[in-house]
């Protein structure tokens, strides 16, 4: 699925990154970075409500290409800047975690674990 489709499905605001043709095949949702680091293998996108810099660091360590903050959360400029430096696209959506993940799943995005 192209990033542009994800932005549309989630009615998301793009905070950094401009490659809307980027392909995202798998995603995961977690507010616990510990769990993300332990269980994620090759997902390209993280949906989270955690807006501190460690969400970006976690995505970076896991080679993820996109973070989407849910529940309308807006990260600080420092967090967006860190993501920009590391080449990670940042989105924010008003949808809650369950709804955001559900919309993407319904449209064909998978978790990579099934």
């Amino acid at each position, binding site marked *: 699925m192209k990033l542009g489709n994800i932005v549309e499905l989630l009615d998301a605001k793009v905070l950094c990154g401009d490659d809307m043709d980027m392909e995202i095949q798998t995603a995961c949702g977690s*507010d*616990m*970075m*510990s*769990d993300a*680091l*332990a269980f994620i293998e090759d997902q390209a996108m993280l949906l*989270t409500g*955690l807006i*501190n*810099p*460690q*969400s970006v*660091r*976690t995505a*970076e*360590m*896991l*080679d993820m290409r996109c973070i989407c903050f849910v529940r309308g959360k807006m990260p600080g400029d*420092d967090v967006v800047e860190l993501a920009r430096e*590391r080449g990670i696209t940042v989105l924010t959506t008003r949808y809650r975690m369950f709804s955001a993940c559900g919309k993407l799943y319904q449209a064909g995005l998978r978790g990579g674990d099934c």
Partner: protein
Amino acid sequence: MSNKSSVEPITQQYVIPGTDFTRAGEASSKVKTILKRLGYDPDAIRRVAIAMYEGEINMVIHAHGGTAKVEIFPDRVEIALCDQGPGISDVSKAMEEGYSTAPDEVRALGFGAGMGLPNMKKCSDDMRVHSIIGKGTDVYMTIRVRGTGN
């Protein structure tokens, strides 16, 4: 460990600041950048990055920071994480998934699920933990790598 190979490693040393949670991960990020530049296998780089990042987080959460020494060999990366924190009273218990002594405020930051040390072990080919109560904890990890540009 140096007798394993006659090749001189690329050595990096970092001070992990213990007072600023937002800076945890900077050293791991730098190591990841170096390994990418050297052309190591992406999966191996990710294992190094995750293992070291978890270690950095642990040092910040539990030990007011510490030091990290990273030695990059053609066939492996060795990481030594040393702190002067309170020590781990039961290392085998700390290695169990889900066991955590982290306070609630750490969980609010996205960590403290009791997955740190087990995940470090999972990402490493060899890991040893030496801990003395009241003195500190040293963690040594070796991660085998492939596909270097050397």
